[in-house]
């Protein structure tokens, strides 16, 4: 039985088709990340699972049960919002306990659940404070705690780290991964940040214009992108695309385009001629931007390299790491 199953789910707003039809199954205990550029429908998909948005057609099953007609609170799910959405008039304890109290849980049980969640997230000293008296990171932890307290079958996260600064984001990412291990819960996580997707996910669902472009583990997406969109979206700096005849490699039948990641291309004595246009030195690596007949190509070199701008160079893609795409944008091997 799947923790979550989506069957041919469609959503239209007026005449605009946001999700033209999605099928997906998430296994129990899985950390599943929806990733895609803004406007790709990932939040809409999450909101339909949550019950905050009504699907135009199709089925949503949570734990094998069809939940299309259930209100959000009855779906045994919990959601963490981007803006945290804490209740400003309640203390941290009040925020954590409201759902259980509303469900009529005995007071002692509510208190125990609040305490357990608070200790998991190091919120005990803050229980009597109000959201206005908390920092951004603390508010985020309260929002996560509010979800934990309910012991849901499914956790939904809607870009929960976007409002945090870079340092806190990295820290909270690790925190979330730890929480996922400890709780063993099924989590669905929406983000536009591929670093979050790659580091947190067991499985990534890449969405493009409402369609699922590929589903796979982070390394599958990195090593075998199914199409040009996924290839370009996963990886930073993003993959270089060259016309097959300018690649210097022998393309397989039907391939018109070579995709090669910046880290899989090297400087050589012979190969694609190009000219250095810009160099970014990061210490542990150097990013070299070049331009030539084959178009703009980015290289990622390990360590420090001193290349003057305008220097002519020759580039050689690693044939073992080449990705070939047909005229329809799909992978061909």
């Amino acid at each position, binding site marked *: 039985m799947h923790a979550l199953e989506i069957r041919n789910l469609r959503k239209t707003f007026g005449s605009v088709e946001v999700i033209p039809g999605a099928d997906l199954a998430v296994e129990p205990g899985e950390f599943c990340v929806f990733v895609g550029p803004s406007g790709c429908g990932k939040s809409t998909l999450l909101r339909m699972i*949550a*019950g*905050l948005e009504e699907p135009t057609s199709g089925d949503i099953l949570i734990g094998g049960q069809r939940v299309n007609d259930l*209100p*959000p*609170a*009855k779906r045994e*799910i*919990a*959601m963490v*919002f*981007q*803006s945290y*959405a*804490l*209740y*400003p*008039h309640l203390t941290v304890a009040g925020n954590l306990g*409201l*759902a259980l109290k*509303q*469900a009529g849980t005995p007071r002692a049980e509510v208190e125990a659940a609040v305490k357990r969640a608070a200790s998991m997230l190091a919120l005990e000293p803050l229980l009597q404070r*109000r959201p*206005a008296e908390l920092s951004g990171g603390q508010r985020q932890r309260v929002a996560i705690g*509010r979800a934990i307290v*309910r012991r849901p079958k499914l956790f939904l996260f809607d870009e929960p780290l976007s409002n945090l600064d870079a340092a806190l984001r990295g820290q909270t990412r690790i925190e979330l991964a730890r929480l996922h291990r400890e709780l063993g819960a099924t989590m669905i996580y929406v983000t536009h940040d591929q670093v979050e997707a790659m580091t947190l996910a067991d499985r990534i669902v890449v969405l493009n214009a409402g369609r699922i472009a590929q589903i796979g583990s982070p390394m599958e997406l990195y090593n075998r992108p199914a199409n040009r969109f996924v290839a370009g979206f996963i990886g930073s700096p993003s993959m270089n695309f060259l016309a097959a005849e300018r690649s210097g490699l022998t393309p397989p039948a039907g391939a018109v385009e070579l995709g090669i990641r910046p880290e899989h291309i090297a400087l050589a004595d012979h190969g694609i001629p190009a000219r250095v246009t810009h160099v970014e030195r990061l210490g542990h690596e150097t990013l070299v931007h070049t331009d030539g007949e084959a178009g703009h190509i980015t290289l990622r070199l390990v360590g420090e390299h001193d290349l003057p701008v305008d220097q002519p160079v020759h580039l050689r893609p690693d044939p073992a790491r080449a990705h070939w795409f047909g005229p329809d944008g799909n992978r061909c091997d």
Partner: protein
Amino acid sequence: MKRAHILVFLAPAVIVYTVIMVLPLFATLQLSLFRDGGFVGLQNFRTLFGDTRWSASFWNALGNNLWFFIVHMLVQNPIGILLAALLSSPRLRGAAFYRTAIFVPTILSFVVVGFIWKLILSPIWGIAPGMLDAVGLKSLFSPWLGKEGSALTTLALISVWQFVGIPMMLIYAALLSIPDEVLEAAEMDGVTGWSQFWKIKLPLILPSIGIISILTFVGNFNAFDLIYVAQGALAGPNFSTDILGTFFYRTFFGFQLQLGDPNMGATIATVMFGIILAVVCVYLFAIQTRLRRYQF
């Protein structure tokens, strides 16, 4: 003087405010301490509270005024909040129409409103008896504005009808400022419908309700026009609709056989000022500071 420019920039506002607000206020306070051109100290106040006829009129007006205020607090503000809650429901169609329709009476003149309602409720040419008759409830009709027991409440309800749009608008704005995500979080937590209103929305609009209460209080204790238009300066029947405003008007300017008495009028005005000042201070210092304002 390095800071002389501050005085220069403040001067226009201070001068205008002083001339049209502060000076008349002090002139009134001063007037209440004089009689027949001579300084009499607090003698006028002693007359107002000590003389049986003066004090009976005063307490009658104050009591009526209090009832006028209570009706507004119990009827106008809860209905305003209810209407705002209904208006902010996303499922309501034609919200813009209702919003405008309910707010329109607020911009009408007191004279128009008072006259219209007098006509509607008139037992002779009014449409109220006929309308009640049409639904078989004619026995419920009575000339409400003409009976001592019901005249004041009727007038208060007319005023509620006219001004219910103001609390509605203020609460509506406060409800709209609650972020959608907070309400969605409440949906997820199972706090829906009326429970969501009581547990989430109401606590978040409490500061607005406080402001509305104090505006209602100041408005009601300064009221005059509606009573004057509907019942005349004698605030009939038998002074049953007499509030501080009408009492002051008769005293200061005189009416029919009663001669105007600027000194006693100023005394009443001073007492009204004191009552409003005291209540507003209690609100500002004791209640307002305890109400939390929320930033979302």
